[in-house]
């Protein structure tokens, strides 16, 4: 039998456009407070827009779900809400299981650190524990094909090496739910073939360009 691992009800997200959102300067906020104080407290409806409106979905265990849409249709926003990076303005969602989200490859990499150090750092940021990373370390390095360069600072890597290591770390995250945002197209064709399947998640939301 299958259980629902992601439930979302009327998820909505409103962003503000215009003065408050575009300028972070205190001066502008003060100027706005002076000219139109009411707008500080209650964002003008005209200056805000709904990036997401009333999204409801259910993802059963074991299902791979892809979201397809034009640029700006809210795919990434939905992923950001489901991975708790940002909060919805209205509605709710419930997620059963450990979530791993890959919105970008190489999140948290620091150029001055070596490949080894970055593997640990990036793994921890993605939600792996230290022991878990140690256990998978050799596998990650082998997957990235970087055995000889693992103790070199990442800033000396070629962009291909960099991306391969970043992806290898992410691919060894074993979440129950994997949220992926257009990051699978990485490396040369040979590497892409190797990494074309996410590592057996219970459910994945998979974004594709239109």
């Amino acid at each position, binding site marked *: 039998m299958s259980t629902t691992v992601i439930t979302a009800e009327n998820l909505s997200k409103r962003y503000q456009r215009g003065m408050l959102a575009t300028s972070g300067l205190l001066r502008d906020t003060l100027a706005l407070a002076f000219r139109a104080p009411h707008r500080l407290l209650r964002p003008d409806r005209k200056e805000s827009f709904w990036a997401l409106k009333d999204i409801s979905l259910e993802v059963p265990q074991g299902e791979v779900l892809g979201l397809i849409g034009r640029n700006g249709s809210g795919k990434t926003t939905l992923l950001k809400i489901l991975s708790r990076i940002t909060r919805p303005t209205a509605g709710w969602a419930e997620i059963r299981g450990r979530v791993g989200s890959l919105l970008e490859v190489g999140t948290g990499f620091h150029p001055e650190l070596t490949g080894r150090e970055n593997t640990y750092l990036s793994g921890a940021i993605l939600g792996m524990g*230290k022991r878990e990373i140690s256990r998978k370390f050799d596998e990650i390095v082998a997957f990235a094909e970087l055995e000889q360069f693992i103790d070199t600072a990442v800033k000396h890597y070629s962009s291909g090496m960099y991306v391969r290591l970043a992806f290898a770390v992410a691919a060894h995250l074993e979440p129950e739910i994997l949220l992926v945002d257009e990051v699978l197209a990485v490396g040369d064709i040979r590497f892409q073939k190797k990494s074309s399947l996410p590592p057996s998640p219970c459910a994945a939301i998979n974004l594709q360009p239109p």
Partner: protein
Amino acid sequence: MASLTSNPSAVTPLPQPPLAIPVTRIEPPRGWFDLRLKELWDYRELLYFFVWRDVKIRYKQTAIGVLWVVLQPLLTMLVFTLFFGKLAKLPSQGLPYPVFYFAAVVPWMYFSTALITATNVVVEHQRVITKVFFPRLILPFSAVLSGLVDFAIGFIVLLLFTFFYGIRPGPAALLLPLFLLLAVLTALGVGLWLSALNALYRDVRYLMTFLVQFWMLASPVAYPSSMVPPKYRWLYGLNPMAGVIDGFRWALTGRGQPPGAVLIASSVMVCLALFGGLLFFNRMEVSIADRV
């Protein structure tokens, strides 16, 4: 009231899962009084990694590397000794100028560095914040903790220094950790406010140079607090760093007065700043990813 919780006990029992599956509820933000310290504890390993990284990269690609940790307070102390001591002849509680200044510069440098790092930490992690979830509170905590390594090294040099000048710490030295803790909490409390504000208004960054300079002059780093007129002492005591620096110097050398009322005032201020800072930061955290 928790607006976003991982609460295994709230799950309706399912037939299948052998282990409690964490259920994450995602809702619009609400509520002020949720400090979310438990979440921070759950992510303590990531906190460790952030601190570890900060320490690792701090002196990368410098020629003399970790020597800077010693040189920075040492040079500051020399400048103070020369200008405030030899030239301005400020009183030093009967201590040799180098000891008088070094004993204050070490905790002060920890504090100012921690405060500046904490203020910038959210902005500097903009990319990570908009791509991965983790309790944002980790950032200011890690900023404040990572400075402790530098402090420890500086402190050892300070100890050698006082020994060299023939000053033996008495039992009061046992209180040193207390003053250090107060410095950490002050940096954290104020850093929480400033880092969240900095994420929204970059003006904070430009204010920092002035703030840190002013704060140093308002603390007994370059002069003893006995120079402050008695009628302004209470005002002076509201600055937690006054209690920290005075107490640090006193605990290490035994000179000066043990901080009493000043320390209590300082502690109260720190608690207020910290508690308010936690609430404010958590409140802002909700929109930080959208607005940083």
